[in-house]
């Protein structure tokens, strides 16, 4: 507002004069008149002020912006319209157009008076704005403010242990890998059991069916594809709601069967434009894993391993690599003590930058954000860059019409190297990393084991060379543009009957491609090998989905305010298609990496697919005095995955809520000062699930081999004309409590879900049909039951310390779920329950009807046979017991003769058959009988000293499948988490813990590391192995490709209970007055540690192991979850 006063006055005078000279001043204005005026504030005329003419529905019909002198003018459209003047930071002026010239004085907005907002918080998960206190379904919402300044990188990290009933397990610590999420257990035998992820009402999921033709050589793709879903930048998230029961998920129909995770992103809001920048540094490192053998221990172990099976040195003699023969040309390369794991570990770093700009005015709100991440893994050779951006724009055309557009994009480029730690753990520790010269000095050239190496030894590729030369890139680009139009057809506020039409189009476009190149330098066989030299493969897949939604929401204004009703109908249609292409060439000349190179094409394939869906939803809410509420939802889904007869499925849900605390009599309770609020909820609903494959109801014909050089065709499947929706009926009973003036809020939910017409994939049928299976069949039922408890502590304790506010907040959640199959066709059951295969390392998998899933069955491990020969007693002709030297033996306390030990030769702990009382069974000649494994089968084996002892449960002298017993359950008895947040002034300290209790895990990685069956490097624990007769140990002898020392037994079944300190975070924001001096509006710092400590008895890498439906929890992890330290700063301008 800097302009000369003189000029200003002159103009004003001119204006006044001109107006005064106009005749007919009081005449009503008419269309076409020119309206003009001057805007000023206390300091003089204002420039760039918005002046608009608005019609009855608040639509702008004419517009001008004041010039440097504060003047404006526009042509009037309708004399009934109003004139509105707005400027940021000033109060809006709204006047009827009753004159041609306006002189308007703008008032600066002072401190806003404190406004008591009486409107209830609403829950919009059902599509209706239902007041939170009337919500009758089971939903848990977390607002992102709770996580602000936490330095989390993904959503799942933040949610772990926070949502009761949501089990989040991180299976891998690789970059870009994601977690497995199961909500209230797994209720299907087929397909993905992860919850549906919805972002701003848009299903954010690449339809698996569209890209399932993709065959990456690297199976980590699958997890990566899903992790893309959660690639949404945590800084953009406003809230996350987890929809648990059928009443809540009903509007998502068949896709919400596994629960729904609804993410709402931040939007712009009216006010000054705010710019926010934050930077985060994240350091990660690998925790200490197993101690492994060093080179010398390893060669010793191998020598024993080769010697033991046949008790001779023939094999060992051939393997010069473990013989320390300096004359061998590569001797220098095989005489080291290399710590391979240490060599592949590194300190991983992540730098994230995020900028967001948000603001808005009268007509439009916006928020634009962009984030850039660059990340290196805690293992060499991993690098990931990610760019995300999100634009949210709301434009109010009038107070009736609103247009909303969203645009989100994520671009990820990932250089993968997932095998490094796994390979490093297996590498021979006596091997050199680099070629070494005569004096053991590394030359810097990676050593790749030559083809001449003894064939028994492992041939893993040097993981350092692999990280340097093996190229494995994947890039992904996904774009989600959305367009939405909201039209208020009737009333505009709560006092009128409202009818809103909402139309929305969303696109989901995803492109990904992968490039892999395996150069000749990594090939131990050089050019001679099977043509896999210089192989490069290239995969591309793209998919797009379009969804259109029309909804009509009706909220009548009833005269009797005790009743409130709202209803919505929605019609949704989606269509998608996908394409993929995959090519691989080998034998290209060395520097050429392109998949299109002129080389031998070893593999080429393409795929294409389509999908469509239609659904209609009706949902209604009724509430009486907000005390009793009822909801009803019905959704009809049409799917292309079923034939005409069963194409449509209708899934209803009903729920009700009683706000007990609204009853008059409750006042007595409330007055007691403990219970403030209490509500009961009950819901019932059915959800459906479709098979994971398109086109099942078609009889398909495929071309087959040529006959007589002519193409042939044959029927390829049996069409599924009777296939039906898998239906899950759920009950949920919930209670909400507010205690101690709502300092404590408590939710308890009990649920039961019954899944019927279970979809069983690959249902075997007699081969007399010409086929081996039906793609799917509806058979059996399954039950999930459980309870959840969620407790929020809001300022449970607060005081003032040193003049600053100190408060304690917390959260606790517990849950339990059991899952069992109630009925299943015996054929399917028998097919799933395979016979025991008698192999090392396998646990009997067995599903019993009406028993919980995840039971582990195996042998009982009883230690190690100390001796091969029994040193006990013999009986003479008179039946007296004598020892081996013929001396009489006297009975022990149990009336048995004492078994004698001849140190180093023979003893009582030898593999001999004993009866139920532990007495040796002797044959007619007084000789003992050897204990055998799998007698009478091709796996038959006679135990010797140093072998593992398995308990002979039935005392038949034969260890076989009849000695397999129940060893425990993979499912936790209880799981959950709790958090504690302390805040003191501007400093807050946030801690989150999660735990599982009472589950067993098969420690597969320890099994591998202690099996002593192959020649890969193993755990240092094997140094305690049995070596000579008489050794007392629990670690069996080394046996190369021989024996049964690591049968699936309780030796590897461990207690998986744990308590993990997930993160601890310190957050401090600068005093605004200090910030102002720095010319910014706020600054905050945070520092946190992730995966701080894990208290567990489990000896493996990480006790977080998920068990799929019907299988046991087995930990084969090679890359444990890394530890992280994060430092971040966030600045708002």
């Amino acid at each position: 507002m800097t302009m000369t006063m003189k000029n200003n006055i002159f103009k004003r005078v001119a204006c006044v004069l001109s107006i005064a000279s106009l005749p007919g001043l009081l005449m009503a204005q008419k269309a076409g008149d020119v309206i003009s005026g001057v805007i000023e504030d206390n300091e003089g005329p204002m420039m760039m002020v918005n002046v608009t003419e608005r019609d009855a529905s608040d639509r702008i019909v004419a517009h001008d912006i004041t010039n440097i002198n504060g003047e404006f003018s526009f042509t009037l459209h309708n004399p009934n319209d109003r004139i509105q003047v707005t400027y940021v930071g000033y109060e809006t002026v709204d006047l009827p157009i009753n004159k041609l010239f306006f002189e308007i004085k703008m008032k600066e907005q002072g401190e806003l008076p404190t406004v008591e907002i009486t409107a209830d918080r609403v829950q919009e998960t059902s599509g209706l704005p239902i007041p939170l206190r009337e919500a009758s379904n089971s939903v848990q919402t977390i607002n992102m403010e709770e996580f602000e300044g936490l330095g989390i990188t993904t959503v799942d990290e933040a949610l772990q242990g926070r949502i009761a009933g949501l089990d989040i397990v991180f299976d891998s610590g690789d970059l870009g890998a994601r977690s497995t999420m199961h909500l209230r257990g797994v209720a299907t035998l087929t397909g993905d059991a992860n919850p549906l992820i919805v972002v701003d009402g848009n299903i954010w999921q690449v339809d698996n069916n569209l890209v399932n033709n993709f065959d990456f050589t690297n199976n980590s793709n699958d997890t990566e594809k899903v992790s893309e879903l959660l690639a949404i930048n945590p800084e953009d998230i406003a809230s996350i709601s987890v929809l648990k029961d059928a009443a809540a998920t009903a509007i998502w129909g068949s896709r919400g069967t596994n629960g729904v995770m609804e993410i709402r992103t931040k939007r712009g809001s009216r006010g000054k434009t705010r710019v926010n920048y934050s930077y985060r540094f994240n350091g990660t490192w690998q925790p200490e894993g197993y101690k492994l053998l060093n080179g010398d221990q390893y060669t010793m172990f191998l020598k024993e391993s080769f010697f033991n099976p046949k008790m001779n040195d023939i094999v060992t003699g051939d393997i010069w690599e473990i013989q320390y023969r300096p004359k061998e040309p590569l001797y220098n390369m095989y005489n080291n003590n290399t710590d391979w794991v240490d060599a592949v570990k590194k300190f991983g770093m992540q730098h994230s930058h995020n900028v967001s700009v948000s603001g808005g005015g009268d007509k439009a709100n916006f928020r634009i954000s962009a984030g850039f991440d660059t990340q290196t893994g805690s293992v060499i050779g991993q690098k990931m860059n990610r760019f995300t951006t999100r634009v949210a724009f709301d434009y109010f055309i009038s107070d009736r019409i609103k247009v909303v557009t969203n645009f989100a994009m994520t671009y990820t480029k990932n250089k993968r190297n997932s095998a490094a730690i796994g390979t490093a753990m297996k590498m021979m520790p006596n091997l050199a990393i680099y070629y070494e010269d005569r004096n053991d000095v590394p030359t810097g050239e990676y050593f790749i084991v030559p083809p001449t190496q003894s064939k028994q030894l492992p041939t893993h590729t040097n993981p350092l060379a692999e990280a340097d030369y093996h190229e494995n890139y994947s890039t992904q680009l996904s774009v989600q543009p959305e367009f939405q139009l909201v039209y208020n057809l009737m009333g505009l506020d709560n006092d009128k009957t409202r009818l809103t039409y909402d139309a929305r189009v969303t696109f989901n476009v995803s492109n990904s491609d992968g490039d892999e190149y395996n150069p000749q330098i990594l090939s131990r066989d050089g050019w001679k090998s099977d043509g896999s030299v210089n192989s490069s493969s290239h995969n591309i897949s793209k998919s797009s989905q379009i969804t259109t939604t029309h909804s009509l929401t009706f909220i009548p204004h009833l005269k009797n305010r005790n009743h409130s009703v709202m209803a919505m109908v929605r019609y949704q249609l989606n269509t998608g298609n996908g394409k993929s292409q995959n090519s691989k060439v080998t034998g290209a000349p060395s520097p050429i990496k392109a998949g299109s190179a002129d080389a031998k094409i070893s593999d080429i394939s393409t795929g294409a697919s389509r999908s469509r869906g239609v659904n209609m939803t009706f949902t209604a809410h009724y509430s009486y005095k907000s005390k009793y509420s009822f909801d009803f939802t019905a959704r009809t889904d049409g799917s292309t995955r079923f034939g005409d007869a069963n194409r449509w499925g209708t899934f209803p849900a009903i729920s009700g809520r009683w706000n007990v605390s609204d009853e008059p009599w409750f006042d007595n309770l409330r007055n007691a000062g403990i219970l403030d609020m209490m509500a009961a909820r009950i819901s019932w609903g059915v959800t459906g699930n479709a098979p994971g494959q398109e086109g099942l109801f078609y009889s398909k014909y495929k071309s087959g081999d040529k006959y007589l050089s002519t193409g042939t065709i044959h029927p390829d499947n049996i069409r599924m004309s009777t296939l039906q929706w898998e239906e899950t009926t759920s009950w949920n009973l919930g209670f909400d409590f507010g205690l101690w003036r709502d300092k404590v809020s408590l939710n308890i939910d009990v649920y039961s879900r019954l899944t019927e017409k279970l979809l069983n994939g690959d249902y075997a049928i007699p081969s007399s049909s010409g086929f081996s299976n039906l793609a799917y069949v509806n058979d059996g039922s399954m039950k999930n039951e459980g309870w959840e408890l969620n407790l929020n502590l809001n300022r449970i304790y607060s005081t003032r310390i040193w003049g600053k506010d100190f408060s304690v907040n917390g959260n606790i959640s517990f849950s339990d779920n059991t899952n069992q199959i109630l009925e299943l066709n015996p054929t399917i059951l028998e097919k799933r329950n395979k016979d025991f295969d008698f192999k090392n390392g396998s646990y009997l998998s067995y599903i019993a009807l009406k028993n919980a899933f995840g039971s582990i069955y195996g042998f009982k491990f009883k230690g190690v046979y100390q001796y091969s020969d029994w040193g006990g007693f013999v009986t003479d002709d008179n039946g007296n017991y004598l020892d081996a030297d013929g001396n009489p033996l006297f009975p022990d306390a149990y009336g048995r003769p004492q078994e004698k030990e001849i140190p180093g030769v023979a003893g009582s702990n030898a593999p001999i058959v004993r009866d139920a009382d532990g007495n040796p069974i002797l044959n007619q000649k007084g000789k003992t009988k050897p204990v055998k494994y799998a007698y009478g089968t091709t796996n038959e084996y006679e135990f010797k000293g140093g072998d593992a002892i398995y308990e002979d449960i039935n005392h038949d002298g034969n260890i076989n499948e009849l000695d397999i017993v129940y060893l425990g359950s993979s499912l936790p008895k209880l799981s959950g988490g709790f958090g504690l947040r302390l805040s003191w002034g501007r400093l807050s300290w946030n801690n989150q813990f999660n735990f599982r209790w009472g589950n067993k895990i098969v420690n597969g990685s320890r099994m591998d590391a202690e099996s002593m069956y192959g020649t890969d490097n193993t755990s240092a624990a094997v140094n305690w192995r049995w070596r000579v007769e008489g050794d007392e140990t629990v670690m069996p002898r080394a046996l190369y490709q021989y024996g049964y020392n690591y049968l699936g037994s309780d030796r590897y079944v461990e207690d998986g209970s744990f308590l993990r300190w997930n993160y601890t975070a310190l957050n401090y924001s600068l005093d605004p007055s200090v910030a102002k001096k720095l010319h910014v509006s706020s600054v905050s710092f945070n520092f946190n540690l992730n995966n701080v400590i894990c208290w567990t008895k489990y000896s493996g890498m990480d006790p977080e192991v998920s068990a799929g439906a019907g299988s046991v929890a087995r930990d084969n992890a090679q890359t444990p979850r890394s530890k992280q330290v994060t430092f971040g700063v966030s600045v708002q301008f």
Partner: protein
Amino acid sequence: MKKIKLALSVILMGLSVSSCNDFLTLQPLNDIVLENFWTNKDDVESVLLGSYASLEKTDCLVRMSIWGEMRSDNITIGKSTKDDILQILRDNILSTNDWTQYKCFYEVINNANTVMYYAPQVAKIDPNYTRGQLNADLAEAKALRALAYWYLIRAYKDVPFVTEPSIDDTKEFFLAQTPFNDILDYIINDLEDITDDVKVKYLKELENTSRFTASAVWAMLADMYLWKQDWANVERCCKKVTEIKMDDYKELYEKEGKAITVSFFNEYPLYKEDFQSQNGNRVGNAYNMIFGTGNSFEVLFELPYDNSKKNGFVSDYYCPKELNGGYLKATNEAAKKAFTQEYDVRYFENIRSTSDENYIVKYAYEDMECNLSEGKASVVLSNKRYFNNSVRESTSPNWIIYRYSDVLLMQAEAYTMWAKEYEGTDSASTADRTALLEKAFTLVDAVNKRALGGYSAASTEYLVASTYTSDVEKMEELVLDERRRELMFEGKRWFDLCRKSLRDGNTNYLWSKIEDKFDSNARSAVRIKMTDLDALYFPFNRDEIKINPLIKQNPVYVEDEFIQKAQ
């Protein structure tokens, strides 16, 4: 309100733009679907050829040998034999053995059933699809189905019997077995029905041996009647084959004239073994024509292989290119006892003996020539005769299912068994018997003479009629021995032994033949099992029984089920 109406009508328009069901009808992009198929005769032809293609798959091919010959006295364990095959050769067949699965044959059956179901519908739509062509197509499909069942019932005795295609999941897939004889009668009926419809000749020369012709159908019928012990019908069918072969001969003669290498042996047209080569007078012509070149005059039905479609059985199981043996090798008995005549060229065609191995070379040689005059080997044939052969670059010989000499020997077997029925010692019976035995001998002798190669010295080795025409038992044994020599490694021997055992009602003859195959400690166990006629058949696969409770396991293998859970 006007606005509301407008908005509502817009929404309703959106709803009715296309019927929802049409919108949800989405045909797969990567496949041909039934709705768009079966519109013209080419569709019928391509699925029909698809049935042949499924019969030709390695899965079926290997089973033809496993079921038809591996358990016999011809074949034993070779080099690096896979465990499942090993157990079959040791006659320790468990229901968990992968080779007891029979799905591949039911694929042929289902494909054939599909053709039979849809071809008549196509005939209604496609005006170019003539009645005659339809009938010929149906005949081929029936013949293919009959052949598949024929293999199945000889291997498993009673099997589930399906004559409808598996199109959708409403069909009853869980079927109990149908008895051997019911199936046999059904397929005999089928084949008798089609003898007029099936083509005698196809347009393409190759198709005459690779698709079902009248002669192949007659041969198959003869084979079935032989098992049914219906001698008169065997004779009728065999004669039909000979009639056709006589016509074929005339045609061939017109084409090749003097160069023709088919000659008459006891009035039956067969390839001559002897031929003129650069090295002089040599033998091996019949082998080269039948097994080397393929698509020969003598073959009635064979599965064609070539470089683009390899024979997945011969190179792995018999001999690869290097002739160093596959999973199987010939037994010592086959190598040393089967060929009793010194100049029997079939020995060289079948076996290559080294000091300690008997490699199977039938099919593996692309061509061979042999000089019978050089050297003089004893009956225990040394390998010293001058001998020349070439091996296929890639092993892709055709696999013969029926050939003419097989038919001649079937006819001989029928006459012999017929003769057995004239038990009386009166002169009328004797005369009838002798007449039949003479007919049988003529047939055996024709095949045998050809094998002796036309070499002059061999004539002293010709079979002597009087030895056999007076003694039915000897004649029967001669027929079986001749069949063994002629059809060795062609997947026939075990079936021959089974047929004989079923006829006798015991397995004594069979056991006496195969006994030496087993080492002494396994022998008694196998013997005990083999006393049961059900042991001639294979067990049903464990998975099949698990899936379908209606299938009754072959009683001989039931006990194994219980004990042997492993593997």
